[in-house]
């Protein structure tokens, strides 16, 4: 059983499980974000955000989520370094033409996504935790006014461009990551692989479009 933490296959398994978990989380997060543009009343989003920061269940989920991120990032780094070491001298001419396109840039798209994640955490999560976020009082209850924070951000054009670009790159990451995770879990055959590949395209388009539409609508409203 110890092989799961030490062998390359074990590390890949943990990394792919964490990846699938994060894929599901992205959908949930997107669903909540879309409340911003679905409801005119900003308090709907603020109240949901308030529930997310006060519920014990969500607190437990938050720890699991951080665990998922750490597991995925740490094992990805270890495997990537091992893979680089496996080929100490590079080819003079390597076109890797038969390597699937998005899989060539996994580490690059991962670095962009991680950079976005750090900025995102500093902008919202840490700011709220440190009590630096603006507040609003409704019926005697203090809420973080995330909506005005978001709207302020999405009125800055460079931020909107960076936000959308980050999601496009995340989309590239997931185009390979989505179907690769299933293959790593051992699910690869003539029947299911084409279905998974179509699902991957559908999922990536949905995530990139779903997240990107929010800053676009806010910027132009």
């Amino acid at each position, binding site marked *: 059983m110890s092989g799961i933490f030490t062998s390359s296959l074990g590390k890949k398994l943990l990394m792919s499980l964490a990846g699938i978990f994060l894929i599901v989380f992205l959908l949930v997060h997107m669903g909540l974000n879309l409340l911003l543009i679905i409801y005119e009343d900003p308090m709907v989003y603020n109240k949901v955000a308030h529930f997310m920061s006060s519920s014990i269940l969500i607190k437990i989920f938050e720890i699991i989520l951080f665990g998922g991120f750490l597991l995925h990032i740490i094992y990805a780094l270890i495997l990537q370094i091992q893979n680089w070491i*496996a080929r100490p001298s590079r080819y003079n001419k390597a076109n890797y033409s038969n390597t699937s396109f998005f899989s060539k840039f996994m580490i690059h798209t991962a670095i962009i996504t991680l950079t976005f994640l750090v900025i995102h955490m500093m902008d919202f999560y840490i700011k709220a935790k440190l009590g630096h976020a603006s507040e609003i009082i409704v019926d005697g209850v203090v809420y973080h006014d995330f909506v005005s924070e978001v709207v302020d951000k999405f009125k800055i054009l460079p931020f909107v461009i960076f936000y959308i670009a980050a999601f496009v790159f995340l989309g590239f990451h997931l185009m390979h990551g989505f179907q690769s995770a299933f293959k790593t879990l051992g699910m690869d055959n003539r029947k299911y692989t084409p279905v998974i590949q179509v699902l991957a395209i559908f999922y990536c388009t949905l995530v990139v479009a779903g997240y990107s539409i929010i800053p676009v609508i806010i910027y132009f409203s």
Partner: protein
Amino acid sequence: MNLNLKLKVWRQRDPNTRGKFVNYQLKNISTDSSFLEMLDVLNEELITKGEEPVIYDHDCREGICGACGLYINGRPHGPDSLITVCQLHMRKFKNGDTIVIEPWRARAFPVIRDLMVDRNAFDKLIQEGGYVSVNTGSAPDANGIPVKKEKAELSMDAAACIGCGACVAACKNASAMLFVGAKISHLTLLPQGKVEARDRVLDMVTKMDELGFGSCTNTGACEAECPKGIKLTNIARLNREYYTALV
């Protein structure tokens, strides 16, 4: 039509010496000659001039032994599919082309000299479990042991692996998982291979990591470059077998 070519060949005296590319001009190469015959022409010229010939592996020259492994213009076994270098013909090139020839590059496959690499790592993997410990005796009756047609076919497809190492050479991570996956499928799908299935997969994966191969990121390059068309699904089977063996 005959070809005039510029070759850029990796020359390395021994495993501990730094290698470098050396340029050669070749004239009047027949488009009907094989790639290895073209290298033979080069070596004849070098020997005539009193220079050291280019060392490269080759054996059967029929595309079945897997000895000739060269990385040609950025692809293992050169610009064609489902072939080894000996089956690559010069008609795949154009007059005036520059051809870059390199050895397989992987930590687990150190260069012995020039284009010849040490592929002992594959033998070590086979020693870990690429066999069945049964007394086979003389040829058994054809249907003495019932095997499902579908499984027999999958096993035979995997058994087509000739151990050339193109999968490792093609993989951006220098991973040997297609090779190991093929051996696991070949043996584990059959009743004779079931007895040692658990130990086989655990030992082979441990050895694979120990030998310094990278790990699979499902890019599909190995499948595309394999001269015997071994499928990526064998890697998924390797994964399944490994996880099952762990628990």
